[in-house]
């Protein structure tokens, strides 16, 4: 390649990745600084960051699959909650954790299908469709919730052999329970599908200009259904994470707004899997820090203020660093075929 061309490529490369790389460099520098000072605390905070981010990143992937195909999913919270409940109950009854996770995922997918039916086929306002799912989940899980049920166990960390022995990186990245691993893999999978496969191209086309997709023989309704159902399955996995991996039991309203935070994470990440992952990690980090600070008790600040940290951070970052994000053009608009 000639020099000017490669120079242009380099500029393009910088334009595309420059900000991300700079942020990564700063983050790494900060991590190493703290690791040198207090390795145990740093490890704990980072590991907690990753785990806190799991339901958020899965929820955000659910949201962005839907919205890339122009279906707004505000029911992620409900999908997670219902999946957490069903997963937990299956675990209580059968003691089979894998089966329980699968049932949680299936629950999410079924609720995804319900949302798709309401918003794609019936063309109900999508916000209302999602709200229906949220209310349904809170109502059903609250009604059938039984105090005192306990399950035989939860998903435990699986150290990945020698990788888990690497200092800092090992305990943080390679000594995690299965759904945490899965969430990381899924970020890459969703990115690949969305940006490097025909299905992804069609999905994005359906989200931007469904009529154009239709005139090229793409089945707009099918694309939307599949994306929303697969998204639901991911939200289901997030629910399973909460009740089967993080806590090991079910509590009323245990999602505690994570489904909505996931939507913020999705927007923050500009509707891209990696962006969402970064955003989820930031939220996770803020939560982890808050816990750590409250534990340490060194700061003489009322704990309520420390509790605000994640939200404060969100506002600062959203307002200061993220440029104007642009949602898919047809987002939230039901598609009507002609003729």
């Amino acid at each position, binding site marked *: 390649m000639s020099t000017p061309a490669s120079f242009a490529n380099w500029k393009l490369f910088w334009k595309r990745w420059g900000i991300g790389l700079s942020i990564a460099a700063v983050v790494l520098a900060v991590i190493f600084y703290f690791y040198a000072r207090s390795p145990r605390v740093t490890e704990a905070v980072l590991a907690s960051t990753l785990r806190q981010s799991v339901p958020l990143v899965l929820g955000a992937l659910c949201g962005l699959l839907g919205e890339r195909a122009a279906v707004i999913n505000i029911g992620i919270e409900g999908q997670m909650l219902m999946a957490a409940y069903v997963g937990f109950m299956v675990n209580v009854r059968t003691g089979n954790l894998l089966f329980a996770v699968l049932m949680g995922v299936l629950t999410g997918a079924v609720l995804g299908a319900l949302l798709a039916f309401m918003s794609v086929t019936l063309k109900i306002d999508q916000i209302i469709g999602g709200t229906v799912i949220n209310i349904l989940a809170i109502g059903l899980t609250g009604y059938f919730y039984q105090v005192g049920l306990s399950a035989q166990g939860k998903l435990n960390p699986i150290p990945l052999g020698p990788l888990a022995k690497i200092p800092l990186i090992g305990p943080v990245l390679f000594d995690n329970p299965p759904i945490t691993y899965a969430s990381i893999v899924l970020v890459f999978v969703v990115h690949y599908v969305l940006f490097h*496969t025909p299905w992804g*191209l*069609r999905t*994005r086309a359906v989200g*931007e*200009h469904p009529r*154009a*997709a239709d*005139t090229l*023989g793409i089945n707009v309704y099918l694309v939307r259904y599949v994306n929303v159902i697969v998204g639901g399955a991911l939200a289901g996995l997030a629910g399973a994470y909460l009740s089967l991996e993080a806590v090991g039991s079910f509590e009323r309203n245990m999602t505690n707004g994570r489904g909505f935070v996931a939507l913020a994470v999705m927007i923050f990440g500009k509707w891209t899997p990696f962006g969402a992952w970064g955003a989820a990690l930031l939220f996770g980090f803020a939560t982890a820090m808050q816990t750590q600070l409250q534990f340490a008790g060194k700061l003489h600040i009322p704990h309520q203020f420390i509790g605000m940290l994640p939200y404060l951070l969100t506002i600062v970052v959203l307002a200061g660093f993220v440029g104007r994000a642009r949602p898919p053009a047809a987002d939230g608009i039901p598609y009507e075929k002609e003729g």
Partner: protein
Amino acid sequence: MSEETLALEVRNIVKRFPGVLANDHVNFTLRKGEVHALLGENGAGKTTLMNIIYGLYHPDEGEIYINGQKVTIDSPHDAIRLGIGMVHQHFMLVPVFTVAENLILGAEPTKGWTLDLKAAREAVIRLSEQYGLEVDPDAVVEDLPVGVQQRVEILKALYRDAKVLVLDEPTAVLTPQEVEELFVIMRQLKERGVSIIFITHKLKEVLAIADRITVMRRGRVVGTTTPSEVTEQDLATMMVGREVVLQVDKAPAKPGDVVLSVQDLEVEDERGLIAVDGVSLEVREGEILGVAGVQGNGQTELVEAITGLREIRSGKVVLGGHEAPDRNPRYLIEHGMAHIPEDRQKHGLVLSYPIADNLVLCTYYKPPFAKGLQRNEEAIEENAKRLVKEYDVRTPSIFTPARSLSGGNQQKVIVAREFSRPVKLLVANQPTRGLDVGSIEYIHKRIVEMRDQGAAVLLVSAELDEILSLADRIAVMYRGKIVAVVDADKVTRAQLGLLMAGSPAEDVLDKEAVPA
């Protein structure tokens, strides 16, 4: 009927919509390698017929033949498979995708599971070389000018191996230069054996490019002819079903006092760039000043600044001898300004409101339409009934939402509303864009009447014909500046075309034509 096989033939196509017979036993043939123009007013059934051929609508009756074979086309997918490509009036391109991505969408080359964008890029380059349609495969579509976007649409069809290309009103969005380029492309496609159906309602274009012409009116084919057999006037008569006055009859202008005076106006566009760059102009009572120019040279911003819809960066707009103390639209309207906006659906009407409400959008708060805080329904309805009749708005009722009217009737609603007040200054921006011959004739007549009643008219149009037939004086706008102001009878089409393309006025015009 000759023995040659036809690229496409439709026989006895019938398509009914609720309350309308959109296609009434339509017959149409397309020979191989010809440009066949399909001419008709809005609502004549051209687009319906094409949507049937492209599989977007299903005909109630009738048959379609391709290369002599009877076919059924149930979806665009079938149409594409049969070698039919369509360039829709509103482009079917994903704005945030690159040219290459748009090209392959729906028929993607892959390597394993992965999109092969390299192959897509090569396909763009190969096709653009083959057909002489230059485009950058990596350009993002929304950054491209409309003319180039249209090329991408044509490439999309060619990528799918289209042998029959349907161009639905392709020139409606193009500048005169881009139209010329499109015609060159069409001729090249023809030479390579592509058969083209060219849908339009512009008579000049039909005569310039078509091999055969089929005229439709109210869902029926009126006749098929060739350019050598007919004149513009004949075609207009066939389209409308009666004699049409193509040339506007108007007496010489009798200019009076200056009504609108714009001095050294500078206006920014959305991106903060200078769109209107030091414009000064005057419009007098009883004259029409036409602003000619290729779209996007600052006309939109100029009009918005004059009508109070956009901030002025510097300079003055003086209406009726004194600068408006308060440049909001209501003040200007109350002081005798009428505005026919460029985009009638976005800025001219509230589409979901009934016609009756749209007709009082500027006056609803004043008696007789308001009684204290309440609406006076009686007065509003009476006003609507009167205006609908007077301005010949074709609508089922005055309570019909503006959305369901045709473009021509929507424009008549706007004209009726704006002209029903005392008007000192009329600002009309693209008043006849996308309208059929009948509506154009009507609106032109009304504008001239307005002038003859003493109003000052500022007419902005990208259609040279419109400017030439209506304006008394012509200002040419290029890159935000007025490059020349000339009397309409002292300038030729060719000269205007050059000025619009940026040639310096001193080179183009005779000395005496340029006013000091």
